[in-house]
Structures are given as structure tokens and as C-alpha cells.
């Protein structure tokens, strides 16, 4: 067992109102720069819809993520190492999205609004932020927001092609939900695995996936490797950029900008302890519908004394372990099983999970004397307007039973709380049918509905006092003359290890790749 800690997120889609505050605050923080105009580290999509970039879920087209090869082993869909060289993919990456698949970013010619008085009202026309030329807008990052124009594009949603339920596009029968998306900071990250330069990495202490801007050589395989299309190429610096999980804030114990500013309080951040040695084995599960459960099996119980002892041995800080014990993510994903990974069938072991939405069904159902007959929720959820198989194709690789169980649980919790606050009778036996008790139902209600800041975000501060300052870690070879800048302290720990009698192989594996399992 090799325990690692991972900072992860859960988004409660039931409460997402699609206001895009997360996207806008994220953009203002990270990507309002030349070269990054088209990037949205966080974006909110209306589902069903084609998304951003267009049709990102269509892996037959983009070839992102992993699949199993003939021998049942993991292989990047975009091709293994030899295939990339042999087919000249290094000269031209066939699977890479083009700017038009995202959109050509634009601004408006605001200056014309302040021109001298004219006969006609002035108009601010759209101007490309790349070429500076006037443009006719034909597509944007949220062109199909709230199903706008969906009669044209909705059927292109790759999830619709996968499911049996017929999706209605006429207005009375339509459904929609919001899907805020960010980098999944996967346990089995295909972007990291695709990077020829070794510029992409997972941080050992919290699993955040980052791009080393110094090392990136702009080969762009990370973009195609990522099935969520959450690594972007800056056309100005010619390097890859991605969601950083706001690591400077996380290190200070603060939530990410998208989570902090979420007006619906839908986002939760916490720590998960997992067994890194078993990730590959879990990702090689042949059955797509079981991948969600295989990933759940990787998560370790932070209250188990054996796990705690093993985590301490692995060098995980005590406050990280404590945060894992209080983790809202662990509560929702493992204890209550109401949160699910996004497209587990990509075999990436994503770490941003989602609570499926319930809203349309509750409106339909609450007029029907539901308090007296809570049993009604079971057939009602099966006929929900958002088809369960649509949710299952998004969140569980097609496993509908687990989605239904979560929705029953959420609905029953709501009915129970309504009865309680309204002073009505409620047969608490019903709670047992969905694996709830009065205590757990109340706890779940507090976590989901009240959603206090301190309940949503349980983030330990990082131990900066124990690691060399970031600027020194970059290496200071060549500045031997000055105090404190002898040979790069980046290698300082390696020298210490060598003195302690470790072999160079062990040191290499430990301090460079974290000793992870793959070759």
C-alpha cells in the first residue's frame, strides 16, 4: 500500500443555477491575458449540449483518455509512445482541437461608442482578440447556453447517442441541467502520461496536476491526451496551460476561486486518502459500468487506525490526515454514495465528482401529497425528466442503479426534512429503505442545504516551513559565489538520501517520480 493524499472537489448539481460566476471569477484570476483569451479553466455547460470545445465527449473523434489494449492493459487512446513517433504525430497532432472547436475569442470595438455625435446610434462591433479584425460571430464558449439554438446542435451531444431514451427537443418536453467543468486532477492523469517533455506532473503532497512552464516544449500531446479537453495551448507563449486548482490559495487553506465565489454554494473541497499502488489495477477494470465502484475502492477510510499509521509512515502530515477525517468529499462520495465521477469510462480516475440533479422531479412530484406517500418518489425518479440513463452516461459509465440509489436518497432526505420543519408526521422506516437514519439524514441536509463555509471547505494549510522555498527549488546552479546558493538545493535532498545509504535508483524513483508504479 502506498498512501497518497489528494485534494478533490464535489459539485452538487442539484443546486447549480448556471450563473457562470465560477467561470468569470476564474477567468479574471487566471486567463485574462494575451494568448489565453479562449481558455476557460472553469466553464459551465448546459446539458444536453455539445459543450466546450464542441463535442469534447466524443472520444471517437478526439481520442482522449485511456482504453484497454488487446492484452487488457491501459493504453492512451491517442497512441502509445512508439505509435506517436512512427506515424509522425510529433510533426502534426491529428487529434488536437482547432481554435474554432473552442471559439475565436473576441472583444468589442468600444471606442466607436465614444466617437463624436452622428446621425445614427453607434454600434460596437465584434473584433477578434487574435487578429484584431472584425468578425461575424458564429460560435462561442456558451453558444448553446440554456438550450439556446439547441434544435441545431443538441443532437450532437455525444451522450445522447449512447443512451436508449429518446431525448425530446420540443419545448414542453425538453430538460436541461448545468455541468460546471474544471480540470479533474485525475489519479491516472492521461495528460501527464502524454507529456513527452515531462513538464506535467502531479504534486506529491496534494495531487494537483500542474504544467511546468519552464519544461513545456509545446508538443501538445497533453491537450489530446485529456478526454475532458481541459489542457489548453497558449498561442502566444506556445505552451500548455491548465486549471491549477488555485494551488496558491489551497496552500493557505483557502478554497479555489470558483468554489469561494459560487453563489449557489454547490462546491465542496476536501482531502481523500487513496492507495496509489492499486490505481493501475482499478483503471484496468474491463467493465465500464464498474469503474466507478473500482475507483471508490481506492479511497481509504481515514478513521481506520491502520490507514492512519500507514499514512504517517508515508510522510503525510497530521493535519492532512485530520482534514481527510473531516472531509466532506469522503462523506458524500464514500459514506453516502451520492457523488459520482465525470465519465469514469475514460479510465482517468477523475477527482472532481458530481451529485446528480434532482430539481425537475421534485417540482413535478411535490404537488402530489408526497409527504403522506413518500413511496411515490421511486416510480417518479424512474420517469424523471432528466433520464437516469443520461445521467448514468455522464457520471457512472452507464451504471443506472447507483444513480437511482443516490436520487432516492436525496429525495427522501428532502421529504424527511420538510416533514420535520413543518411539524408533520413522517414514517422514519422509509429512511431505512434508502440507507439513511434520522441522524445521517439531518447531517446530509446540513451539508447539502445549509452548506456552511466550514463544512464545505476542509483544507489543510501546506507545510511551507518544511520544504525549500519555491524559487530555490527551481535550481541555482552557477551561482556558487553567493551565500545560500551553492549547488541547486533541488538536489539537496537527494544528497541527504545518498548519505543515508539509499541507492541512486531509489532516490530517483522517490524524489523525482514519487516512486509510482508505472514503466
Amino acid at each position: 500500500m502506498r498512501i497518497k493524499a489528494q485534494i478533490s472537489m464535489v459539485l452538487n448539481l442539484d443546486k447549480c443555477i448556471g450563473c457562470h460566476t465560477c467561470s468569470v471569477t476564474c477567468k479574471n484570476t487566471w486567463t485574462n491575458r494575451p494568448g489565453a483569451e479562449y481558455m476557460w479553466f472553469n466553464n459551465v455547460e448546459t446539458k444536453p449540449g455539445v459543450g466546450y470545445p464542441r463535442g469534447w465527449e466524443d472520444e471517437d473523434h478526439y481520442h482522449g483518455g485511456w482504453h484497454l489494449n488487446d492484452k487488457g492493459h491501459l493504453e492512451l487512446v491517442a497512441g502509445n509512445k512508439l505509435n506517436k513517433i512512427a506515424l509522425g504525430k510529433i510533426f502534426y497532432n491529428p487529434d488536437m482541437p482547432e481554435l474554432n472547436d473552442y471559439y475565436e475569442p473576441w472583444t468589442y470595438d468600444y471606442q466607436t461608442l465614444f466617437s463624436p455625435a452622428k446621425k445614427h446610434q453607434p454600434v460596437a462591433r465584434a473584433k477578434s482578440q487574435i487578429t484584431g479584425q472584425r468578425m461575424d460571430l458564429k460560435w462561442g464558449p456558451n453558444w448553446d447556453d440554456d438550450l439556446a439554438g439547441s434544435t441545431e446542435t443538441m443532437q450532437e451531444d455525444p451522450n445522447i447517442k449512447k443512451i436508449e431514451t429518446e431525448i425530446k427537443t420540443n419545448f414542453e418536453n425538453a430538460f436541461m441541467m448545468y455541468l460546471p467543468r474544471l480540470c479533474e486532477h485525475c489519479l491516472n492523469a492521461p495528460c501527464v502520461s502524454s507529456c513527452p517533455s515531462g513538464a506535467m506532473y502531479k504534486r506529491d503532497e496534494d495531487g494537483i496536476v500542474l504544467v511546468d512552464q519552464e519544461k513545456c516544449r509545446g508538443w501538445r500531446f497533453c491537450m489530446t491526451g485529456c478526454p475532458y479537453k481541459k489542457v489548453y495551448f497558449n498561442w502566444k507563449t506556445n505552451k500548455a496551460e491548465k486549471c491549477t486548482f488555485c494551488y496558491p490559495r489551497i496552500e493557505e487553506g483557502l478554497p479555489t476561486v470558483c468554489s469561494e465565489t459560487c453563489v449557489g454554494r454547490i462546491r465542496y473541497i476536501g482531502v481523500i486518502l487513496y492507495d496509489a499502488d492499486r490505481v493501475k489495477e482499478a483503471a484496468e477494470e474491463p467493465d465500464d459500468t464498474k469503474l466507478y465502484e473500482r475507483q471508490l475502492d481506492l479511497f481509504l477510510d481515514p478513521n481506520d487506525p491502520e490507514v492512519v499509521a500507514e499514512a504517517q509512515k508515508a510522510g503525510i502530515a497530521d493535519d492532512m490526515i485530520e482534514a481527510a477525517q473531516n472531509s466532506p468529499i469522503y462523506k458524500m462520495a464514500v459514506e453516502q454514495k451520492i457523488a459520482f465521477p465525470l465519465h469514469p469510462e475514460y479510465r482517468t480516475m477523475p477527482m472532481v465528482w458530481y451529485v446528480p440533479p434532482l430539481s425537475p422531479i421534485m417540482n413535478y412530484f411535490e404537488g402530489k401529497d408526497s409527504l403522506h406517500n413518500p413511496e411515490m418518489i421511486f416510480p417518479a425518479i424512474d420517469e424523471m425528466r432528466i433520464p437516469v440513463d443520461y445521467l448514468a452516461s455522464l457520471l457512472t459509465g452507464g451504471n443506472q442503479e447507483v444513480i437511482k440509489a443516490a436520487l432516492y436518497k436525496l429525495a427522501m432526505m428532502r421529504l424527511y426534512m420538510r416533514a420535520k420543519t413543518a411539524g408533520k408526521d413522517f414514517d422514519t422506516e422509509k429512511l431505512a429503505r434508502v440507507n439513511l437514519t434520522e441522524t445521517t439524514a439531518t447531517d446530509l441536509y446540513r451539508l447539502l442545504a445549509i452548506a456552511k463555509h466550514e463544512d464545505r471547505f476542509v483544507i489543510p494549510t501546506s507545510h511551507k516551513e518544511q520544504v525549500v522555498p519555491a524559487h530555490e527549488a527551481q535550481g541555482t546552479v552557477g551561482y556558487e559565489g553567493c551565500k545560500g546558493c551553492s549547488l541547486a538545493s533541488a538536489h539537496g535532498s537527494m544528497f541527504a538520501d545518498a548519505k543515508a545509504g539509499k541507492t541512486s535508483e531509489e532516490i530517483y524513483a522517490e524524489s523525482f517520480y514519487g516512486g509510482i508504479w508505472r514503466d
Partner: protein
Amino acid sequence: MAHPVDWFFWTVYPYLMLGSFFFGTIIRFVFYPGTITAKSSELLEKKRLMIGSIHFHIGIILVFFGHVMGVLIPKSWTDALGISNELYHMFALIGGGVGGLLALVGIFILTWRRFSDIRVHLTSSMSDLIVDVALLVIIILGMWASFVAGPRNPDFNYRTSLAIWARQLFYFRPNYLLMVGVPLTYKIHVVCGLAIFGFFPYTRLVHALALPWQYIYRRYLVYRRRPTI
């Protein structure tokens, strides 16, 4: 010194350019490693890049190794193996012709793309534009030398003059008189080629030296740990 211009171009100039290549490369890799990228514009335009880039890269790699063989293997070696001059040139022209044609088609499409695609053109630096044009010119000159200037000068054999001079460069005793009788197209090709080596490290071309060999043998997943104090 009977030919001061020839002396300059075939004794001084090559070392200026090669010196610039070596020192520039060292400076770039040591002091500015973060600036070395392939400078891809695939995000902005894909179709023409596909045809152009694949043709060009395969062609230029063939051409590079063709030049290495043509210049470095002395005529006496192939004579010793019993390869006749005609047979040698036939192989050289076929191999070089295929590589050269691929590279020419590729660079033509890439240059056309760089100047006509509005997004690519407006996001190009002056250096990107110069590199494209320079490569187009040198490849045209090379093809011209092989297939037009060569046949027109049947008495000229680069293996008894130009190649010997080029090898002499490596042990720092170039005899510039060997180059005096070389046809003009070849001379311009050599001068332009050396110029490309000269500005190579300061342009996007430097990506050719940053091949990610370590990817072949490294583990897939990379974890990084900040060194502890």
C-alpha cells in the same frame, strides 16, 4: 591572397556561422531553456499544416542525412567498394530528389500558409517569417543545384572539391581554393545553408535539438515532491 572575397566566404564566414550555431545553442539551452518550444500554430490552422508539416519534416530529415553522407563519405571509400561514379550519383539523385521534393512541397505549403492564413500570419514573429522564407529559398537552391546546375556542369564533381572543403572545415584547415571553381548555385546554396546554421539557435528551429528522448523510457505518471529542508 588572390581572391579576397572567396577567402572570406570559404574560410572566415563558415566559422562565424558555425560559431554562432554552437555558442548560440549553448546560451539558449543554458540561460533560456524555457523559451525552447516547437512554436506550434496548429491551434490556429490545421489542414494545411498537416500536409505541409508532415511532408517538410520527413523530407528535411532525409535531406539532412543525405547531406551528411554526401559530404562526410570520401570518394575514395565508395571507389574502394567498387561503386562507380554514375551509380553513386544515380542513388544520390534519387534519394536526394525524393527527400528534396518532399521538403520542397512541405515548405512551400507551410510558407504559403504562414503568409496567407490571417491568424497564423498575424501571430507570427518576424523571425518565424524569415525562417520560413529562408528554408524555402535554400531548398529551391538545393534542388536547382542538383537537377539544373549539376547537369549543366558535367565536369564539376562536388565530391572532389566542395565535399573535401567541407570536411576540412571540421579539422580547421579549409582550403578556400577548392571552392573557387564551384558553380555559383552551389556557392549560394552553401552560403545560405551556413546562414541558416548561424541563426538556428535564435529562432524556432532550435526545437529540432530538443527531442524528448526521455519519454521513451520514463514512467507514464510523473509525481513531483518539493525537496524538504
